[in-house]
């Protein structure tokens, strides 16, 4: 059983989507579970996944999100490797035997001293180690440097595109100016009397004219002239040999190959050129409610560390399914062994419930929003930003979905709540001192921050053979929060939180 397999234990995120714990995050400020769907993703840094070079975002934008040094194969999209070859440099002076063989070029007398060792030069070509395509296949000459000047895709109609763009920009600009002009001319008519600014405006423009300055208002832009495209009636006919000559599929590109070169989309294999490799990004995730980061990776491409990492598995008791006591049978009582572990530095009191506990109003949402706003105001002093921030808060909330209840077994609740001890890494090396305490009988064993729990349940009687049995329950736990939203309270606060869990226990094996 590998951890790459889907986990049978799933937690319901605060947005209503069910996820295994390793896909969940825990916002300490809210405090709620978050998943990849209900957080906002942001681009943290750009890098090339082949040469592992970090590329600043301005440079990435400039390079059109492509690496300057790495190339992809145009055939199979794998990375190309540079291959070196040594080519002898043909010195025209090397063979000073006969003038006839050297041809028209006469050797310059300065370098007439023949060297005994033939000089060689390293030349590079790009080769795909996956499909064996090389730059030599399409007749690109070898380059003197590995990261050399490989041909870039150039856009044949770039000039025309630029003209079009300038043309439309000026058209739109003119339209805008006309509209402004129209409004300006319309505006004074609304007043009965000419206003003071109008009069001064007049004098100013008069004065300007008198002293020979140019008119203050911008000269009207005229749309540039553009030659529209011309319709043609002479069309390219089908090549006649298409009806007689067999085609060679090897020379015709596939759709994927064409699309990887979107500008020219070559149909012949001979027009495929090395493609600059696309960059990759590191993402940071941000809680939509409180705008705090949940994940912020380290900047460097090779670093695997995070500057901020609020994984759910660091804050929420982890439930691992160990095994069932009996094979599953519809309507027959059974028991499941679950291993719970406490990842935090504080003891947790846990109880298993079958309906949502009435949540203590730990954080009043409005009050919380207010504190967030205060914080933001402190950070962003400009009023414009504040407006934007306010607008953001009204909009960015995704609609919370109802958790889809798929549970089809009756859980026998535990008689009491129990305590899950804090995590203590040093205990791992301690001698096992089993302080024999009175344990409730549903606890099978306890070791450090882990507890093995026996939970009885009965799958619904109407289940058929091969139906999946899903257990569903609420786990209520105490959580000690070491961060606080308000500045006054420095003490860690204790919350009682609850998570809804679904456990995929397996399939019914026997009918009844």
């Amino acid at each position, binding site marked *: 059983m590998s951890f790459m397999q889907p986990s049978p234990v799933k937690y319901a995120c605060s947005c209503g989507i069910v996820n295994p714990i390793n896909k969940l995050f825990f916002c300490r400020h809210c405090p709620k579970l978050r998943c990849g769907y209900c957080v906002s993703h942001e681009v*943290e840094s750009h890098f090339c*996944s082949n040469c592992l070079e970090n590329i600043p975002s301005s440079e990435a934008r400039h390079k059109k999100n492509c690496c300057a040094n790495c190339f992809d194969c145009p055939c199979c999209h794998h990375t190309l490797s540079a291959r070196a070859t040594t080519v002898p440099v043909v010195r025209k002076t090397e063979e000073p035997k006969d003038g006839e063989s050297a041809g028209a070029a006469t050797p310059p007398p300065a370098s007439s001293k023949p060297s005994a060792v033939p000089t060689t030069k390293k030349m590079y070509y790009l080769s795909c180690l996956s499909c064996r395509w090389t730059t030599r296949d399409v007749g690109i000459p070898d380059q003197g440097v590995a990261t050399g000047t490989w041909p870039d895709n150039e856009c044949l109609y770039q000039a025309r595109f630029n003209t079009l763009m300038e043309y439309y920009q000026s058209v739109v600009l003119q339209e805008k100016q006309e509209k402004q002009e129209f409004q300006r001319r319309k505006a004074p008519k609304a007043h009965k009397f000419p206003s003071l600014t109008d009069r001064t405006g007049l004098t100013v423009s008069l004065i300007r004219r008198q002293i020979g300055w140019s008119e203050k208002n911008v000269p009207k832009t005229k749309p540039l002239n553009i030659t529209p495209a011309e319709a043609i009636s002479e069309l390219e006919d089908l090549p006649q040999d298409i009806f007689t000559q067999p085609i060679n599929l090897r020379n015709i590109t596939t759709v994927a190959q064409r699309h990887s070169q979107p500008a020219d989309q070559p149909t012949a294999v001979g027009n495929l050129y090395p493609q600059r490799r696309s960059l*990759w990004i590191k993402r940071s995730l941000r809680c939509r409610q409180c705008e705090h980061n949940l994940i912020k990776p380290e900047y460097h491409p090779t670093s*695997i560390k*995070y500057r901020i990492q609020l994984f759910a598995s660091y804050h929420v008791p982890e439930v*691992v399914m160990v095994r069932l006591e009996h094979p599953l049978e519809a309507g027959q009582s059974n028991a499941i062994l679950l291993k719970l572990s406490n990842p935090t530095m504080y003891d947790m009191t846990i109880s298993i419930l079958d309906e949502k506990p009435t949540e203590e109003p730990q954080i009043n949402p409005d009050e919380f929003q207010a504190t967030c706003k205060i914080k933001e105001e402190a950070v962003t002093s400009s009023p414009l930003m504040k407006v934007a921030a306010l607008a953001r808060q009204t909009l960015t909330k995704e609609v919370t979905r109802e958790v889809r209840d798929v549970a089809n077994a009756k859980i026998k609740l535990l008689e009491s709540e129990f305590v899950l001890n804090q995590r203590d890494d040093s205990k791992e090396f301690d001698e096992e001192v089993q302080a024999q305490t009175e344990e409730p009988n549903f606890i099978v064993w306890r070791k450090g921050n882990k507890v093995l729990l026996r939970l009885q349940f009965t799958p619904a009687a109407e289940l058929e053979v091969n139906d999946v049995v899903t257990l569903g329950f609420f786990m209520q736990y105490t959580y000690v929060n070491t961060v606080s939203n308000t500045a006054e309270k420095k003490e860690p606060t204790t919350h009682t939180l609850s998570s809804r869990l679904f456990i995929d226990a397996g399939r019914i094996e026997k009918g009844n």
Partner: protein
Amino acid sequence: MEIPDTYYSKDEYVETASGNKVSRHTVLCGSQNIVLNGKVIVQSGAIIRGDLANVRTGRYCVISKNSVIRPPYKQFSKGIAFFPMHIGDHVYIGEGAVVSAAVIGSFVYIGKNAIIGRRCTLKDCCVIEDGAVLPPETTVSSYMRYTAKGTIEGGQGNPCFVPAAMQDEMVNYTKSFYEHFIRTPAPAS
């Protein structure tokens, strides 16, 4: 899901002082060139070609059944040369995988029957899917997942494809794999 216990017989596996558990049914060529840095499991049928070049693994690695660890070579104009291979800590190499990488970072998961071509570089915290084939000289950077289809997906901070807490996941997984890989208890007699 908790990893179930795997039992091995006393005759089948050798346990070294540093906690390595190495099957007797393996082919370890050039064993003087193989360094297992402790708590490494090498299961039956695995082949490690230390005779070609040095092979060095970190702690808590799992080299599963029938996998092949083979140092990479590079062709030069005057013949070929083999290069040493380094494997980091907490690396899982799945059953039947053929690994010819130059460097494997730490916390790497290589799926069943994956083929890692020569001189590949697998950075820390990457995942190779079951049955994926990596052409030679591929680099898989951190938090990337190389799929069986031959595409690379994921990236740090992407909640899909590779878990964000890949490091912890691999540490837990390889540690509990080691803890649950236990000798069959001697029959009580």
